[in-house]
């Protein structure tokens, strides 16, 4: 193992060590100190993360860094061949960036928690829960970082469950409160549903790809597709439903995505996240905004190479639905944390949607920017809640900007970032402006520019005379088509090698030319097959991705609409909390803020601004994307400075087909519209909003949204109630029909027979017979009872005697 891997491992183990320390000695360490102990662990992680990040950014030969050795954790002997489950550190740009992000955000949150939990931790029987909180947090930190460095899906799953456990523990931290423990259970059970799907996907991976290692699995997947073997050759019936090979591969992808659906709270399983706000606010910031819920997106990014186009489409649909409904619900929420929770859901929907449409780097970019600003906003809300003495209702707040200026203005930065504040056409903007824009741009491409880019080439090249280029027609077909696929910047570098990439303008023209010939992918693929064995841009997977659907128009327009809704509800939240006149004098009077708690806010605000521009620092952008394992990434860089780079990214040259150009017109100023509308409505307190609510149809919609679109009711009625009804009905029926029936039948029959024959038999010589039977039974009982002495030694003796007899019999038989 190299130094970087060791540093990563140390960073993972340090919080675990602190967990052990706090678990065993926490009650002795005491109240403020145990928090600092936990901070020590996470600072070690941050140090390691920084070391690795700097090393990664300055490294020239990144492929050499990525070639890590692993240790066989256990070797399974299955299917006639040995399958090692390897423990290996995954070291690539994605891991490094995510690791750094998680370490930085959690350091801030840990520090914040010391201030926050000081007032929140003495609530069970006067028992100090302070150290327990940090104990759980450290365990979570360990699990999350472990998840990030796992190279095998198996270990990823292990850490996946560990973060789930930590989430459960921390949501139910105030377990003496009924709602908190209920919320914890809800989160846990909902996650189990998703994890069940994950497990099924894992089984399919295990059975068909025969490995857990991500790279190896992707290579096997590609190979199986190319040779039409393995999972693609499967042809099975599941409950009478015929599933082809491709269908099974899609099922595998969807199964893996189910895990992400649970953790990232996507559409059918999104109900747990708002309830999870029952946990302490730093937990909401760390787990339910910045890191754990993003792990679902991370998982999709990791298994992206195993996703078929259908699976990707499924993911996109789920993401689209999630981002829409949750943003709508967020409009009407009055609890400050609930608003943030629903906005988190919506943004997660954006990420998943981006993944689904193939905007791999854009979604991850959004993930990182979102982590910073959402963690910051959650901490800000925690500050508000702490300052207002556990009041979470925004209707009682207002005018807090004087009392807590730092919180107010850092929160405002967060609002700007999530709203997509920026001047279109320039490089001036914050977080969401760049990241959301990229997701939408790719969606635009997939909606409007898709057909004319690929339709023609499929006809011309796919089955044309260039088949001679490669081994099998199937592969050849894909390669040729993949050549036309838009490639992410990172992939472009990979195809040409890093030295060519450095000379930007030189390589760009060349590449642009090659792309149009549809050969570069063949070339790059050959080089790469020799090298990394199915690493980044293998042509086959690229081919699979090239079959991606042209997505329907509503899937482009819904996110666009939500891009207008997001600034509205965020601004509403901010304005109701901080601006206007104080609506509750008592709350306002007590409000204050403490330095231990606003210092992390400032760090995170700086992080938000810095992360916004990550994509424009070539080094950082590469760090996220380069050499990571996306097979095909349909990426559209946020701002494309010149034509050469434009070509490099594979975008069309025409101005009218440039997605960014189109998007400026559509959503460029959405932030202004949304935020302006919110200010207009909430400028003078809540009266205007109340009046709007009283409008005839709006009232009904408001009610629907307040009831969270009835998801909880539906689940409660259909799933819980249904199960109850079915079970109770079935058991009732069984009781009445079968048990009672048999009993009644027997009873009635007995009565009849007794009536019929009783007199005769009784009066006959039956009594004597009965007596005789009774006597003989008693006698036999007495006889049989004798050896039943109840003494264990006698039983052994009898047993041995039996053994002797049996042995004697056997010997007699054998001898004769």
């Amino acid at each position, binding site marked *: 193992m190299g130094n970087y891997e060791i540093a990563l491992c140390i960073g993972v183990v340090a919080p675990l060590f602190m967990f052990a320390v706090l678990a065993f000695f926490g009650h002795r360490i005491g109240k403020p100190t145990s928090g600092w102990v936990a901070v020590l662990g996470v600072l070690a992680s941050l140090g390691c993360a920084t070391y690795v990040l700097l090393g990664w950014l300055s490294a020239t030969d990144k492929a050499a860094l990525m070639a890590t050795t692993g240790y066989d954790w*256990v070797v399974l*002997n299955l299917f006639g061949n040995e399958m090692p489950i390897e423990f290996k550190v995954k070291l690539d740009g994605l891991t490094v960036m995510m690791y750094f992000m998680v370490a930085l955000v959690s350091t801030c949150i840990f520090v914040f928690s010391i201030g926050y939990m000081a007032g929140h931790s003495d609530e069970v029987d006067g028992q100090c829960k302070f150290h327990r909180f940090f104990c759980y947090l450290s365990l979570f930190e360990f699990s999350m970082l472990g998840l990030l460095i796992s190279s095998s899906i198996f270990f990823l799953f292990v850490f996946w469950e560990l973060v789930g456990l930590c989430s459960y523990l921390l949501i139910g931290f105030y377990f003496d409160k009924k709602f908190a423990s209920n919320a914890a259970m809800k989160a846990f059970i909902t996650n189990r549903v998703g994890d069940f799907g994950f497990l099924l996907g894992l089984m399919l991976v295990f059975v068909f790809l025969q490995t857990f290692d991500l790279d190896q699995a992707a290579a096997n997947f590609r190979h199986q597709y190319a040779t039409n073997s393995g999972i693609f050759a499967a042809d099975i019936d599941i409950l009478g439903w015929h599933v082809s090979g491709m269908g099974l591969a899609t099922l595998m992808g969807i199964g893996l995505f189910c895990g992400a659906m649970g953790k990232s709270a996507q559409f059918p399983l999104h109900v747990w996240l708002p309830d999870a706000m029952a946990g302490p606010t730093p937990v909401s910031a760390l787990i339910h905004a910045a890191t754990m819920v993003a792990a679902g997106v991370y998982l999709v990014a990791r298994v992206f190479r195993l996703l078929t186009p259908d699976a990707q489409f499924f993911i996109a649909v789920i993401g689209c639905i999630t981002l829409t409904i949750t943003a709508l619900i967020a409009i009407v929420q009055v609890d400050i944390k609930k608003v943030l929770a629903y906005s988190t859901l919506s943004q997660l929907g954006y990420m998943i949607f981006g993944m689904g449409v193939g905007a791999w780097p854009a979604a991850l970019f959004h993930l990182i920017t979102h982590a910073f600003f959402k963690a910051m906003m959650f901490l800000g809300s925690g500050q508000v809640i702490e300052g207002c003495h556990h009041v979470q209702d925004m209707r009682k707040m207002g005018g807090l900007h004087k009392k807590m200026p730092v919180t107010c203005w850092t929160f405002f930065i967060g609002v700007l970032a999530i709203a997509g504040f920026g001047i279109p056409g320039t490089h001036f903007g914050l977080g969401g402006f760049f990241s959301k824009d990229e997701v939408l741009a790719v969606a635009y491409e997939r909606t409007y520019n898709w057909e004319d880019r690929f339709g023609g080439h499929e006809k011309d090249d796919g089955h044309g005379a260039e088949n001679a280029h490669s081994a099998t027609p199937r592969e050849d077909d894909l390669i040729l088509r993949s050549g036309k696929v838009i490639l992410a910047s990172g992939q472009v570098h990979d195809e040409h090698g890093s030295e060519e990439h450095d000379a930007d303008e030189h390589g760009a023209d060349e590449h642009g030319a090659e792309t149009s010939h549809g050969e570069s992918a063949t070339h790059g693929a050959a080089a790469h097959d020799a090298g990394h064995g199915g690493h980044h841009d293998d042509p086959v997977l690229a081919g699979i991705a090239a079959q991606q659907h042209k997505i329907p128009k509503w899937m482009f327009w819904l996110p666009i609409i939500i891009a207008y809704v997001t600034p509205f509800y965020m601004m509403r939240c901010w304005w109701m909390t901080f601006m206007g006149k104080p609506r509750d004098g008592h709350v306002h009077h007590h409000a204050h803020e403490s330095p231990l708690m606003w210092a992390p806010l400032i760090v995170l605000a700086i992080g938000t601004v810095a992360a916004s521009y990550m994509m424009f620092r070539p080094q950082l952008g590469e760090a996220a994307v380069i050499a990571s394992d996306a097979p095909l990434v349909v990426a559209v860089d946020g701002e494309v400075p010149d034509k050469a780079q434009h070509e490099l990214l594979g975008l069309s040259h025409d101005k009218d087909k440039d997605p960014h150009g189109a998007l400026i017109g559509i959503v460029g100023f959405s932030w202004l519209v949304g935020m302006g509308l919110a200010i207009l409505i909430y400028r003078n307190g809540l009266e205007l909003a109340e009046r709007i609510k009283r409008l005839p149809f709006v009232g009904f919609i408001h009610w629907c949204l307040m009831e969270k679109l009835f998801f909880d009711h539906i689940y409660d009625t259909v799933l819980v109630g249904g199960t109850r009804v079915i079970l109770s009905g079935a058991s009732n029926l069984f009781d009445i029909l079968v048990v009672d029936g048999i009993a009644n039948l027997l009873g009635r029959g007995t009565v009849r027979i007794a009536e019929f024959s009783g007199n005769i038999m009784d009066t006959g010589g039956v009594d004597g017979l009965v007596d005789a039977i009774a006597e003989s039974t008693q006698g036999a009982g007495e006889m049989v009872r004798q050896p039943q002495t109840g003494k264990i030694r006698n039983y052994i*003796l009898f047993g*041995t005697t039996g053994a002797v007899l049996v042995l*004697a019999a056997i010997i007699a038989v054998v001898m004769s």
Partner: protein
Amino acid sequence: MTLRLKKILLLMTPLAIAMFIAAAPVHAADTDLSLSDQGIQTSADGGLLEALMFYACAGVILASGLAICLSKNIVRMAVYLFGTLAAVALMYFLLLANFIGVIQLIVYAGGTLILLIFGVMLTSKSPWAKFEVKRSELIAAGVVCALFAGMLLFVVVNAEWPLETDAVVVGSSMTQFGTGLLTNYLVPFEAISVLLLVVMIGAAYMARQE
């Protein structure tokens, strides 16, 4: 009776030493080029010495076993059991199962036996408490056990065991044990570890102070 047993037990000590000397494998140089270099015996000595050791071993096992059968005092029985266990361990050395031999010593002689004596001490009211058994029971047990032993011996002596005369007999190495436990026997190994945990909790629960 007592005098004879005492002499047998006293004889055990030099006997044990002598047998360990003879049974322990041939030592060799410090390089790890071959099995014998790692202190692993590849074949028994054979011949007279092995026979003598076997008979001594068997003698101790049977003598102390008989002493257990005849003894009335529970602590003495435990001490005789120690003789049996130690001699069985030596027999494992003879059978080239060094590891099983030492495990027998450390787990049985060092752990289980002490536990037994501990149990005796905790549950005996007077050191000389004896529970007499009825003569009829003794006779019945004797007859049945004699029949059982006779039949088993008949089978053991008359059966034709498939012997691999040409296969190389190799003593066990720790590597084999490790690999075996983590591959073919992984499931029983894990099951036993769970079982041990359960037993630990169960024993603590049952023996706790009310």
